[in-house]
């Protein structure tokens, strides 16, 4: 009598288990993976779509302007690196050849604004203490692509993979080329920014030549690029 009850019980468990398995597998196979989200552009014209994007970009630009106006500290933002097609200079010799000036100095201040096409640009004033190549005034302006950007979690500091952004107070060695329209300077991409720390000159992680630079004194680093 007990065996019969158990058998009936097992049958009642096995059949729905198998049915559930069958239904589940069928559903999964039919949908080829999890369901894709609904198209937010369904029914919208191209003008509507462009307008949505434009409004979001306006909001982002206002956020950057507010960040600057409020004097917020970019160091409080998480850093995100943007990959680029170019990895930059392929050797220190090439980096030196690309540079118009090589200096050691202190980052005095930085501000951010959109370039004429909406890309955020960082504009930094650097107080020049030593010059290893070329000639510069005592204060120079250095432009880099990147800066604070809106994110759902309160913003991030976006910089190019081979070009860490300069931040106020940093003690730096810089390889610089002329700015895009001859105004100011740009860092030599991939190998133009070095930080001076208690342990000597240090290349950022994205710089392929750290082994040749890291730990050198400022004098020795400048001599490399002279």
């Amino acid at each position, binding site marked *: 009598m007990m065996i019969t009850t158990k058998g*009936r*019980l097992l049958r*009642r*468990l*096995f*059949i*729905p*288990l*198998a049915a*559930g*398995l*069958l*239904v*589940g*597998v069928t*559903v*999964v*196979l039919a949908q*080829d*993976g*999890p*369901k*894709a*989200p*609904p*198209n*937010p*552009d*369904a029914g919208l014209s*191209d003008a509507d779509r462009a307008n949505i*994007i434009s409004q*979001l*970009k306006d*909001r*982002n630009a206002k956020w950057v302007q507010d960040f600057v106006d409020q004097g917020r500290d970019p160091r409080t933002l998480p850093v*995100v*690196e*943007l*990959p*680029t*097609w*170019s*990895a930059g200079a*392929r050797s220190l010799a090439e980096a030196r050849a690309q540079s118009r000036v090589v200096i050691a100095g202190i980052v005095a201040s930085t501000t951010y604004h959109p*370039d004429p*096409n*909406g*890309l955020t*640009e960082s504009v930094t004033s650097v107080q020049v203490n030593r010059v290893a190549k070329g000639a510069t005034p005592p204060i120079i302006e250095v432009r880099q*692509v990147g800066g604070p*950007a*809106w*994110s*759902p979690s309160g913003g*991030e500091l*976006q910089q*190019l993979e081979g070009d860490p952004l300069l931040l106020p107070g940093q003690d730096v060695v810089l390889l610089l080329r002329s700015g*895009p329209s001859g105004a100011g300077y*740009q860092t030599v*991409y991939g190998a133009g920014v070095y930080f001076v720390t208690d342990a000597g000159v240090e290349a950022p992680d994205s710089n392929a030549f750290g082994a040749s630079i890291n730990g050198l004194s400022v004098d020795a680093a400048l001599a490399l690029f002279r």
Partner: protein
Amino acid sequence: MGRALRRLPFGASMAAFAAGLALSAIVAPASTFAGHTLGAGDCWRYGSALTCRVSWSSGDHHSIKIRAINQLSDSTLWNAASTACANWENSPGPQFCHTTAYTNDSWVYYKRSDSIQAPNGITYNCNTSGYCSSVAQAMNIYWSEIYQPIGNNNYPSVLVPIAAHELGHALGLAHHGTSGSNVALMTSGTTRTAPNSIDTGPLPACSTNPVGSNGTGGTRCIYNGTY
């Protein structure tokens, strides 16, 4: 007691049915979506919460349809971008690219920024909340913006490679291989003009190991491509 026994099998039946459903999620092919690193560069992967560019539900879930939009204000740069778009379109894989409107297309703007040092290109991917960031930030991509400087025109041999490489980022692909090794279109500094089998990935989708490491899955893996 008898009444209890009669009730127990019904409750147990429902539990068994639910268990069967749960078990199906493990044994069915969709289970292969689990267990991979998400957001590590390539936007792994189709159907996950961190899917890259979205194949909207009203479209073909195994493909992605890019519309390249010209905001370059320069015919040479745009000609290169158009060629890059056509090269992705004409390569095997789930990715399509047109320079004119078509159903369920997903927008990629080609824009100009002369703040960028030539030769180079940068891609920002943006989601529906307007968050625009690196391809390494996992997101459902709503639109992309590819920036190039006018100075790229001084390097004619890499005009198409840059435009095509950046379009790969817009599709959700990260860099692949050592910089300068030129093993794929998604290699930094590539001189290739079109995607190869590394960029589009194998069939069946995501069948290389380890799935999820940079570039090993290609577009087929991201979009669950079946062709």
